[in-house]
């Protein structure tokens, strides 16, 4: 069977249990699989889908249903989301019951401490790959830098930033 939803479903089932820190830490692998291995879309389409997901409300996993939707419509969106959410949710369901017994255990803190640098490296990788895909010219690179400084130094609302960026692009000031 060569339907693209099969490898995509298997990919998300697998990624679900590796997504420490949410969907952003698996973006590099998603991009590698969807763009480089299975050739389902270009890096720019991937970045555009990510931007759409960022503009929608809800969990930061929304890019996953957009990838499924882009490949196979509504059924693709639902199937990829179910595949991405089920394994981690079952794990949470099982662990939540036992959690109180070992919440103060030293090994739990050790695991949490040890995962942090790996998560940081994964998120930095996501950022680098997205920036590479979205910097189509110098003005867009400048926009990314300016937004980063804005987000780091002020408490401006995220939707205001995204809306402002879209308007700047629409009127032709960047891009």
């Amino acid at each position, binding site marked *: 069977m060569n339907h693209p939803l099969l490898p995509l479903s298997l990919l998300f089932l*697998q990624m*679900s249990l*590796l*997504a*420490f*820190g*949410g969907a*952003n830490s698996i973006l590099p*692998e998603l991009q*590698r699989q969807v763009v480089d291995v299975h050739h389902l879309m270009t890096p720019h389409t991937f970045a*555009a889908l*990510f*931007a*759409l*997901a960022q503009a929608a*409300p*809800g*969990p*930061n*996993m*929304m890019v996953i249903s*957009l990838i499924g939707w882009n490949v196979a419509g*509504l059924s693709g*969106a639902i199937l990829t*989301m179910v595949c991405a*959410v089920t*394994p*981690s*949710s079952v794990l949470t369901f099982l*662990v*939540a019951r036992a959690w109180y017994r070992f*919440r103060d255990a030293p090994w739990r803190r*050790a695991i949490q*401490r*040890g*995962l942090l*640098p*790996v998560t*940081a*490296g*994964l998120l*930095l*990788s996501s*950022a*680098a790959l*997205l920036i590479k*895909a*979205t910097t189509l010219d110098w003005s*867009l690179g400048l926009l*990314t830098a300016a*937004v*980063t400084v804005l*987000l*780091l130094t002020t408490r401006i609302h*995220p939707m205001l930033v995204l809306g402002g*960026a879209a308007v700047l*692009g*629409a009127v032709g000031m*960047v*891009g």
Partner: protein
Amino acid sequence: MASPPSDGIRASNNRPTITGLFTGFFMIGVRGFGGVLPWARRTIVEERQWLSAAEFTEVLGLCQFLPGGNIINVSVAVGSRFRGGPGAVAAILGLMLAPVAIVIGLGAIYDQFAEQPVVRRAFASLAAAASAFVLTASLKIAAPLRGRWLAMAIAALTFVAIAVIRLPLPLAMPVLAVASILLLWWFEV
């Protein structure tokens, strides 16, 4: 204005039904533009008072520890705590329904108008800004590593393995995670 109950009944009053879990998490999902967690705290702790602030922090700690979206894990943990498996399913469906519908709607609009230069430029700028969000999040996560050379080296090694060499994550992640946990356990107390 209803006066708040002043005795021990209060806790059981706030035990949500299956429908309550669905609607509560639906409101969290639909209002969460640009970040869901503040809304989750507000709905669960302040508005519906299912959990105390301390309990919520405890649940969130567990959910950040496990793989998967933090808020999705919160919905599973809270739903199952009050209503078992059906509660978890109701909470997660409530959370996901509106955002999935909205994001697919946005995708359809994008597809329809992607050829128009104005829309294309707007989305190029939106995408550039969206990558800045990920960069900001990664810098904030990485900030506590500053000055800890071993942790910084592990983060850098992860970056090289994933972003530069582009190793498959299912291969690289378990090795990096186990190595990181053991190294920090031994050398950084």
